[in-house]
């Protein structure tokens, strides 16, 4: 593998990102005075940007790795990520656009008329965001280590510094166009290699035994029903609770175009996931030796040079590296922007200087966590973030949009109960504190019980404090659902 080519690819992506960010088509998505400009964002452009931000290291590297490692179980991850947008479309896309809120804490404060509920929401946004950035940094560490041979920490530090500096400088803050560019780069960086590899292996005489490569027990017949259902619930509900997703819907001119945008997002991310799944299956055929938790995430990076010796393999690898870096950059900078907004508004008074300090802090904290944790499979660690989001923020969002009886105390109680239950499951399964197979499944895929627990708590506490229903609840809900003229 050629390190100079890979490094050149990384540098090229960075330069392109910064150049498009500073000099390209500027379309604001954060400042109210540029709202008129954001009304010009067409659904296709907006959908590219949403998809560009959404496709992270977990799908770019992790999905193929998981297909290699565990078989068809892995396909549920992208199915869940995509169906998460269906749920978002069905229940919250248009109403949240009409709410005028740019972040989840903004929405909760306006809806429940409570600063306390806002603070708790902000805390969860922060935790979820940090947890979600960590796998991105792990992905950067793996990529740099595999393609250049440098120690893994170089990759995480590099991406943290770049993201922190770009966001603090304002380079990524207001640009829909950069995220859109990242989507098309990622699609190319996965699509071209898949096509080239398929052409290459199509001509190569591969003596393979399908029953060995695609065994029955790793196929759909070998899946555990409880785990699959619980995972799907987490992924479906978790999507709407991710901090960087909602802000993107704000750039839509109205509720109807928010729905159109979501439909296009589903098309765009599906296309990418199909390519990435294909890469996983190619990996099962040609790189079964990588099927180990420590190496599986690198399969996308290593496949091209194995199948295509020489310059072509190096070029394809460089393209994949470029796509992978676009994934780390897009997702982590989107998250750092959202988190820095929350931190600077809630803790530091909301000035531009506060935003910059927050941006650096929001890139540093997950970097420290990255050093303290061992990469344990990118797809799975992102799966846990979805569990936390689905058990804390998503129930409150759903009820906030559809149920006028929601109160601030109910929302706070529900978020804390769900969040604590999810964290408890992580600790118990992480330290292996339970042995019984049912208990192990319940803590490894906890969404099936943490989500109902959070919803029930929210509803019961709200009903117990009926007087806490904000006076404007009816009016606010009407506004969420009334179509624009």
């Amino acid at each position: 593998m050629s390190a100079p080519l890979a490094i050149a690819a990384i540098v090229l992506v960075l330069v392109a990102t910064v150049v498009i960010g500073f000099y390209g088509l500027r379309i604001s998505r954060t400042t109210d005075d540029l709202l008129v400009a954001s009304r010009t964002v067409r659904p296709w452009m907006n959908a590219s940007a949403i998809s560009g931000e959404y496709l992270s290291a977990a799908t770019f590297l992790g999905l193929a790795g998981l297909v290699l490692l565990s078989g068809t179980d892995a396909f549920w991850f992208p199915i869940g990520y995509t169906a998460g947008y269906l749920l978002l479309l069905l229940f919250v896309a248009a109403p949240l656009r009409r709410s005028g809120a740019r972040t989840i804490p903004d929405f909760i404060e306006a809806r429940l008329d409570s600063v306390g509920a806002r603070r708790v929401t902000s805390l969860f946004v922060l935790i979820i965001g940090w947890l979600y950035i960590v796998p991105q940094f792990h992905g950067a560490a793996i990529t740099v280590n595999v393609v250049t041979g440098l120690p893994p920490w170089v990759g995480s530090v590099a991406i943290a510094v770049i993201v922190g500096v770009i966001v603090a400088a304002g380079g990524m803050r207001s640009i829909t166009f950069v995220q859109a560019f990242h989507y098309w780069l990622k699609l190319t960086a996965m699509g071209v290699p898949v096509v080239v590899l398929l052409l290459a292996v199509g001509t190569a005489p591969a003596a393979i035994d399908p029953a060995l490569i695609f065994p029955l027990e790793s196929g759909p017949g070998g899946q555990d029903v409880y785990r699959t259902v619980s995972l799907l619930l987490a992924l479906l509900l978790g999507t709407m609770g991710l901090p960087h997703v909602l802000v993107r819907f704000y750039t839509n001119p109205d509720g109807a175009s928010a729905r159109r945008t979501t439909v296009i997002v589903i098309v765009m991310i599906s296309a990418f996931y199909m390519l990435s799944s294909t890469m996983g299956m190619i990996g099962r055929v040609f790189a079964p030796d990588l099927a180990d938790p420590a190496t599986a995430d690198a399969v996308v990076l290593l496949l091209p040079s194995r199948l295509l010796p020489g310059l072509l393999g190096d070029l394809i690898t460089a393209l994949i590296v470029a796509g992978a870096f676009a994934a780390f950059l897009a997702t982590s900078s989107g998250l750092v922007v959202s988190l820095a907004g929350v931190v600077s508004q809630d803790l530091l008074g909301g000035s531009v200087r506060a935003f910059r300090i927050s941006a650096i802090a929001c890139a540093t904290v997950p970097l420290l966590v990255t050093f303290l944790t061992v990469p344990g499979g990118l797809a799975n660690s992102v799966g846990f973030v979805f569990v936390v989001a689905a058990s804390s923020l998503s129930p409150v969002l759903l009820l906030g949009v559809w149920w006028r009886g929601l109160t601030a105390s109910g929302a706070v109680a529900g978020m804390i109960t769900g969040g604590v239950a999810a964290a408890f499951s992580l600790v118990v399964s992480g330290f292996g504190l339970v042995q019984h197979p049912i208990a192990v499944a319940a803590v490894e895929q906890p969404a099936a019980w943490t989500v109902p627990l959070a919803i029930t708590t929210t509803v019961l506490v709200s009903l117990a404090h009926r007087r806490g229903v904000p006076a404007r609840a009816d009016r606010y809900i009407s506004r969420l659902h009334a179509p624009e003229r």
Partner: protein
Amino acid sequence: MPLPRRRITGPPRRGQAPGIRRPTDAATPSRDVGAIYLRSLIRAQLRLAVVCFVGFALTLASAAVMIATVPTLHETYVFGVPWSWVLQAYGMYPLILAFAVIYARGAGRNEQRYHSLEGRP
């Protein structure tokens, strides 16, 4: 000691209760009617969303069960890959998209109906 009530009060007044016209009805017709239209729009949107979600969940579940249990899907191959793997890897996305399009169209229609009702004098 107290006299039975019916001796004091008059005969039941039939036909009054349902026919009563509230003064607000005449005073602000458009706002009241508008609120009713909006409430029915919210109900229609929620019904549509729940129906789409339940439909999607049932379709996905039956597709998954079929892929997992029909033995021929695992024994026949396409480009060296079992059909069950291929369907699981690519087959679910069209389902998601189909329900998304059905919902987006339906929601748009609900809003159109609301507009045409509200626009009426």
